[in-house]
């Protein structure tokens, strides 16, 4: 599904290298988790994959089902099936949540040469999906993320994911700012989307999210590289001993 080879990334405006030869392969149907200390490059990885400005790829490649992602605009990557659930979802005053979602869904369908969803079909689908995530009609009418609580913003991200049905879901610290109940709800939303044809990359600081979204593979990212890969037990090791132990071990 997603294949990253020897990825080197620096900040565009600064001479600061962030990713230094990252290799990663996420297979369809699998959930990979990336954990790592602050400043290890976790968020940079998610932004580079989704196409945000401000980063320069100096070496390496990233492909989705063999298609090169790095030369594409963010909207082209989205149409191919890349989805980033933001750590800090953006508030957009003046744009209704429903309008936003319908525009997004139909833009992607159009880009893939598929027929656009009719208003009725769209409404039916979104109502069902919103209900599962306990998102009420009021939240759909409000401007995108404006006045949403931290939990509501994250649920709204998962709703977008459910509507857009991406192939590759990247979750950037989706647990940040969530209480236990909200985290469970979000995790249930994600688990409901687990599918043979879909890959997940879950970026997190803490093991607790992984109690709810059970990963198949856990990677430790440090200093811009994957330094250790293992099963779910690796996340527990981090939880118990912190990163210091693992980093000392691989150094």
């Amino acid at each position, binding site marked *: 599904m997603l294949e990253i080879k020897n990825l080197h990334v620096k900040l565009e405006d600064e001479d600061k290298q962030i990713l230094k030869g990252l290799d990663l392969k996420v297979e369809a149907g699998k959930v990979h988790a990336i954990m790592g200390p602050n400043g290890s490059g976790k968020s940079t990885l998610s932004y580079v994959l989704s196409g945000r400005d401000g980063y320069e790829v100096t070496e390496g490649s990233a492909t989705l089902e063999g298609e090169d992602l790095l030369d594409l605009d963010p*909207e082209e990557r*989205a149409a191919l099936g890349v*989805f980033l659930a933001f750590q800090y979802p953006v508030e*957009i005053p003046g744009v209704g949540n429903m*309008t936003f979602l319908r525009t*997004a*869904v139909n833009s992607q369908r159009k*880009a893939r040469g598929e027929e656009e969803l009719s208003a009725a079909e769209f409404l039916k689908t979104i109502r069902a999906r919103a209900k599962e995530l306990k998102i009420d009609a009021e939240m759909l009418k409000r*401007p995108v993320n404006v006045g949403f609580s931290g939990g509501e913003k994250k649920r709204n991200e998962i709703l977008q994911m459910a509507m*857009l049905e991406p192939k590759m879901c990247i979750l950037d610290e989706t647990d940040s700012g969530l209480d236990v109940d909200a985290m469970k709800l979000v995790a249930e939303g994600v688990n409901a989307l687990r599918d043979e044809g879909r890959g997940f990359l879950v970026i997190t600081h803490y093991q607790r999210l992984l109690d709810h979204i059970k990963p198949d593979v856990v990677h430790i990212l440090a200093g811009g590289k994957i330094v250790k890969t293992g099963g779910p037990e690796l996340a527990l090791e981090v939880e118990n001993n912190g990163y210091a132990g693992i980093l000392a071990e691989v150094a």
Partner: protein
Amino acid sequence: MGLPDVKQSATEARLAAMTLPEGGCLKAARQAALSRVQTMGLPGRRDEYWKYTRPDTLISAEVSKASVFASDEAPMFNEFDRLRIVFVDGVYDAEASDDLSLEGVRIDRIADICCQDIHWAKDLYGVLEARGQSPVQRPLAAFNTAFAQDGVAIHVTGKPSKPINLVYVHSDEMSDAILHHVIRVEAGAEATILENGPAASRFNKCMEIDIADTGKLHLVRAQGRDHERRAATHLFARLGTESTFKSFTLTVNGVLTRNEAVIELTGDDAIAHIAGACVGDGDFHHDDTVFITHDAVNCESRQVFKKVLRNGATGVFQGKILVKADAQKTDGYQISQSLLLDDDSQFLAKPELEIYADDVICSHGSTTGAIDEEALFYLRSRGVPIDDATDLLTLAFLAEAVDEVEDTAVAEAIVARLEGWLSRRR
């Protein structure tokens, strides 16, 4: 003390090209307005009130040529059931207009108010304009009162079943139109007036609106899309106790537009909302100049102006709230914002508050900025192409002003116009 030479000679040159209409019962009002023009002189580049907008082409004796713009889009408000009053190059067109009779309102041409002996109109013509000359002079409005060639007197006595639509058709590329309307809304009466069309190559329009206690008036205007037209408009409104006046203006193109609104809240608990959305591309200069006077207790005024500018377009906002000493419990709000779609465009704003009462809430803000990059990336990351995302954010920026239009169907028609403008500029 006489006028500066430059102003004196410019004023004389303009007046020499004009003939004062017969006037009938309005003769005195027209002559008084003419002497106001002679005393004040026409606006000049060195006038403080015209610091950001060059008045030259608005006062020149010769009108600049303006091509008549052809568009595939149907005229604004076409889909609404309304009473149409059509002016072609500033002259009433009876053929193209609807029958002027409608329950709850009486409409007459200005030229007919003397023979019909319509007292209220005689007593209003030029009066609010004259009051509006202090503390800031508005010579183009006085010029309008003196020389207006046509216009209507609209007397709202009930609640007419449909809006009154003033349609301004431009057909002669050298036309110079001067229209003056007077409107009186009686106690408990309520009406909506729609205005649209470019009117002429050069358009000077004045509207005097007198709203009695508890009267309500909604005004929505769409200033025509002719690229080369120039317009100077004045709106004078006086509001009685518990009355409401809401105005919204959409401006799409036009090489030069100066819209002045002079609002006086003279009765307690009155409400005035003045809003505008404009989108300009290239050779486009748009000026909103607003002066709201609070002279009664517990009144609310709200100004919301949004401008989207690109390719060297210029937007100007001069907005003032004057709260007199007796106007306690005033609630005044003013916001003027521009969205610059490139580095070549500019927005000039002069927000002013002058408050003499001590128990008031007045807030104002003015911002200028570009498209929010964070929001743009968020939309794109969901698959929305950059042009669509930019349009979506541009419409979102204008939404606060368009939201001032209470009628949802009219608001939707305005949004459709804005979408059309954006889609033609891909």
